[in-house]
């Protein structure tokens, strides 16, 4: 790493203020408009706050409650919400990477109609949440849904049958989010040198070998980027399960809290931090902060691992 950096060290050193000049616009907007809400969020996690009244300092009570008090509904919400979220990330992210990657690789062959096809595969990403969910609720409707009709499943209930509710949710999420990663891969693949590809093609390498040995390594950085951002994005999953089945079927009831099959942490956070009643922004902020820490730790781990792989 060090040696590499030295090799790339600029030949003519620039003035010290130059990096600052490039960073200034971002640091300025970040400090003015992003830092305050974030820090207030951290502060709020140490208070009892109902939005209607001034926050009251409670120290670490929210965290203690969340982490150690099984009598509290929030304790169970955090546990189950986090468990479901992690489950979702683990099962969804591979598809969020592989599906668009497959599309991008196939489209890069410049097959007939690849421009139209690209538009088709990208289109769902332009939709807003409500239209995505309304459409898919009709698709997965147990009574008259197209999915059941096409697959001949009769009155199969996608929204309340484990693990099919997960399959449906992951499918919807991949469908909706496919375009973003697709376009990143496409632009990266197009940057791969055609000459090298052709040279290997003449050497007798087939499409699969070319893909594994040349295309994929050349798009390593965008690939890493999408893995990290997809993980982050899926940790924040919320709208899809909320509109799909409100958190799904009850699996068990513990201490008066119903454990729902696919209710995510973000749903619990939004429920108690925001909304028409019973707002408990302090607890919501604590949960959000715990989630944020986990996301950050996971991203750092991924980044470290990738860096090691790059060197």
């Amino acid at each position, binding site marked *: 790493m060090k040696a590499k950096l030295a090799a790339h060290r600029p030949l003519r050193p620039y003035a010290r203020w130059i990096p600052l000049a490039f960073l200034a616009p971002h640091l300025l907007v970040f400090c003015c408009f992003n830092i305050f809400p974030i820090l207030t969020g951290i502060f709020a996690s140490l208070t009892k706050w109902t939005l*209607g009244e001034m926050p009251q300092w409670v120290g670490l009570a929210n965290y203690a409650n969340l982490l150690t008090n099984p009598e509290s509904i929030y304790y169970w919400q955090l546990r189950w919400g986090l468990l479901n979220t992690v489950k979702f990330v683990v099962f969804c992210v591979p598809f969020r990477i592989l599906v668009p990657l497959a599309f991008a690789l196939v489209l890069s062959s410049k097959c007939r109609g690849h421009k139209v096809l690209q538009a088709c595969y990208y289109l769902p990403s332009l939709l807003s949440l409500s239209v995505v969910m309304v459409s898919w609720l009709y698709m997965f409707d147990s*009574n008259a849904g197209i999915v059941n009709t096409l697959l001949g499943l009769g009155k199969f209930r996608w*929204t309340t049958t484990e693990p099919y509710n997960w399959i449906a949710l992951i499918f919807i999420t991949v469908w909706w989010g496919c375009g973003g990663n697709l376009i990143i891969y496409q632009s990266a693949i197009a940057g791969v040198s055609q000459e090298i590809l052709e040279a290997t093609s003449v050497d007798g390498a087939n499409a699969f070998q070319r893909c594994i040995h040349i295309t994929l390594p050349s798009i390593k950085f965008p690939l890493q980027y999408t893995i990290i951002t997809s993980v982050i994005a899926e940790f924040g999953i919320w709208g899809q399960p909320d509109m799909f089945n409100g958190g799904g079927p*009850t699996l068990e009831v513990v201490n008066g809290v119903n454990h729902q099959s696919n209710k995510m942490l973000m749903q619990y956070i939004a429920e108690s931090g925001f*909304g028409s*009643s*019973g*707002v408990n922004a302090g*607890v919501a902020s604590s949960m959000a902060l715990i989630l944020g820490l986990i996301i950050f730790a996971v991203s750092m781990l991924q980044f470290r691992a990738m860096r090691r792989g790059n060197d």
Partner: protein
Amino acid sequence: MKKLLTMLLTIAMLAALAVPAMAEEPVSIEMWTLFTGDDGTTMQAIVDAYNASQDRVTLTHVAVDRENLYTKLALAMSDEAALPEVFVTYSYDVPNFVGLGYIQPVEDLLAAYPDFDFAIDKYHDACATLNYYDGTRYCVSLDFPTWGMYVNTALAEQYCPEVLEDNSVTWDEIMAVGASLQEQGVEDVSVMAGSWDRNDLLNSYLDLAGTYASEDGTTLELNKDAVVEALNTWKTAFDAGYLWEEGEDPMSMFALEECIFVTGGTWNMNAINEYGFDFTFIAPPQFSADDTPTLFGASHAFMLPTRSYTEDESYAVASFMHYFYEHSIDWAQAGSIVASKATAESEEYQAMPQAFVAENYSISNPNFTYSQILFDVLDGLDWEAVYGRMTPEEYADAWQTQAQERINAQ
């Protein structure tokens, strides 16, 4: 000399500006409501007509979706400039809003304009309780969005003509009709579909228990036995196959004439009108045939946020509330049970389906500071106990526990 001249000129100019301004200064006020969609359009039309009838006052109607309205109010409370002059939410929010200091009594404002006459006896009887908190009047009702049951008249005549004779349906009758439909081998018609777990269960619960709060309305007192009994009743009918199947859309069933009854709110009336068959609107199934059914219903009501008002602003608010009272018939077209007695007595209103409900049943909801929390928790629990994924006892405990902890956090 020059200075003096300038000063004189300035004073003259200011005076010239001030004189006409004092005579006919235009007043503009803002009203936030939770009326979106069709209701929003109807309200906008009334506001437009009101504005056309006024030469000084301009009222701006701001529709805010229900979920956002509470947050927006909470946020605006810190900054008077962001507050509207008047807003519309549910009467059951009053105790909570008073406690938080969001709203002020309406009495002073109403008393200041005796010509408009806001006497409580000019309003629907339910207003005498719903508009008051601790003996003080805090809101002025527009209408009563209430929970009830729609009846497909033709199907009811075919399958259960005797049930409707007393204008109310009991659970025993529901079961009997269900059994007789199954005996006759009728497969494509169910007895009843419940379209909203929250209101259906609340209505059944209140029918049994009467209230969910202590007398002073500050503590939660859920009657667990009543919750279990209500759930068991629904579950028995559901398991017997008299109701809908999980996954079926109740309103679709009704539109397709696949059920005789569907529970629904007054706000569904416009849509049901379009289905193109005769229907009536009655009380949901009762546990006993003896007493007059009490419908679970709140009231949409005008409230005044805690802020200062100029003379003109309070006049404008009062004059619109009066205008709405006088023109409630336009509001009733959307299915609403209006608060205005003047409108309720008109022939046009008497011909509307909701007039029957307004006359035959009483409308109420328990006085409780945290009603909204209770409703939201129930909303989250869905039909899980009826579908058999929770026992009724677990359901009752979950409702109690979750509502109580959220209340404690307030």
